[in-house]
């Protein structure tokens, strides 16, 4: 497995918040998602990984290179979309694009303007007159216009309507399709991302509480629907996130394989139905410490 990004003991301390001792490895050719509640540290982590802010301690390597001595080389191959994209607000979209272009070794202005046309963003409009969603789209267009090998996006679909959100997620899926490029995305909502992400990370209170392959995670977490009396009280106690439903109840299990045998008779009789848990259900259950 080729690693495209590696962080070791990454720590960032602010007076009221700290991102603590994050170590992670991101393989090449996939979409990696960081989820977590608001204030969990996702933006701080993304900014550290993209070298937007200095770390208090720890190290980041991207493409096997360190920002300490190869910053330009790395940033030439990264497309970073911050949560609050920043531009020369008084100047036009076109000015900002022309300003950014000479910095990149590889620049495809045609791709940029095609995306802006697709997003219906005029080149003449001053950035300060763009909505938050349009600024994000401009930032995404810039990230796509210099043939990056790694995209890092912080809440890229916030402020976008459902059509644009779908379009962006589809672009991300196509971006990694060849297996040589990678997307790292942070979001507090799973909407849409759960379909395209292959690896899932969960942050809470400045800590990386868990990392997993999405399919592996969803193979373990299942939602069990059952009629009243179909499961023993002991079995029911092992379920979390219990819900009353018209035909009975349902609950989540974090280890379906451990319950499989016990559930088999109920599944056979039709009194028990097992379905994949949704990623947001799993994350909420984890957040509650279940």
């Amino acid at each position, binding site marked *: 497995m080729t690693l495209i990004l590696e962080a070791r003991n990454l720590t960032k301390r602010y007076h009221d918040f700290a991102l603590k001792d994050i170590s992670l490895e991101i393989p090449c050719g996939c979409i990696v998602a960081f989820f977590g509640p608001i204030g969990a540290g996702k933006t701080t982590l993304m900014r550290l990984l993209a070298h937007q802010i200095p770390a208090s301690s720890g190290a980041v390597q991207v493409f096997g290179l360190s920002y300490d001595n190869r*910053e*330009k080389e790395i*940033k030439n191959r990264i497309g970073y979309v911050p949560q609050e994209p920043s531009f020369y607000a008084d100047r036009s979209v076109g000015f900002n694009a022309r300003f950014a272009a000479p910095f990149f070794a590889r620049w495809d202005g045609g791709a940029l303007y095609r995306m802006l046309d697709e997003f219906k963003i005029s080149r003449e409009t001053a950035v300060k007159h763009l909505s938050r969603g349009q600024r994000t789209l401009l930032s995404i267009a810039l990230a796509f216009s210099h043939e990056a090998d790694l995209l890092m996006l912080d809440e890229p679909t916030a402020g976008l309507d459902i059509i644009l959100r779908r379009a962006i997620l589809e672009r991300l899926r196509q971006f990694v399709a060849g297996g040589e490029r990678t997307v790292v995305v942070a979001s507090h909502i799973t909407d849409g991302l759960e379909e395209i992400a292959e690896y899932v990370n969960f942050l809470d209170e400045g800590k990386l509480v868990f990392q997993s392959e999405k399919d592996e995670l969803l193979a373990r977490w299942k939602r069990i629907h059952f009629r009243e009396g179909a499961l023993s009280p002991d079995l029911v106690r092992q379920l979390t996130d219990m819900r009353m439903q018209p035909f009975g109840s349902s609950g989540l299990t974090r280890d379906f394989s451990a319950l499989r045998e016990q559930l088999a008779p109920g599944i056979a009789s039709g009194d028990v139905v097992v379905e994949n848990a949704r990623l947001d259900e799993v994350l909420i259950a984890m957040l509650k410490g279940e």
Partner: protein
Amino acid sequence: MFTIARKTSFFYFTHLVSFCAPAWPALLKGKGGIISMLAFWVPLWLSSSVLWSEKQESYALLRMLPVTDREIVRAKFSLALAATFVYWLILALFNWWAWGSRWEYPFYVALANLTCAVSLPLTACWYIVSWRFGQSALTVGVLTFIVLAIIPTFALNIDRWDWVGAPGMAAARWLANGPWYLQLCLFLIALAAYYGLMQVAVRVKQKSEASL
């Protein structure tokens, strides 16, 4: 680096034009003493150029681009140095125009050299303040400097065209009466200080998030 300097140069240029504009009528009337006032524009002009260019700068955007903090600092400092040199040239030309090629008034040359030399480290300090403490601190610093240093100087000498004998000009008079290499030394010391402060600025820019 050139792209950053070119964008920032807009502020230096527009401020230069606006600061020099009031001097033209006096010069056309042959009142060469206006050069002393122009010389005192240097720190004011550089400080206001730094202030306005920093207010308009988007360091968060620059951080996303393949450019290092060292290059950003070098671009800004090189531009300020070049701008100071251009202003010094303008002062020298005014001097030559007003007093003729004989340089009968070395006081004005010394005054121009002194203000340009002092302005260089001052400009460096403004950048460091901006990157370490943010634009609000820079605004307070520049305004305080203008209120405490520049306005009193102009207020004390408002009725003079010729500042040779004006109070507070002792350093310029001393330089003017000293050997020529004294002024060269002054410039070399200012350049050394400027270079040293540029190294400090690089470290400050790398470590601080105040300007982001």
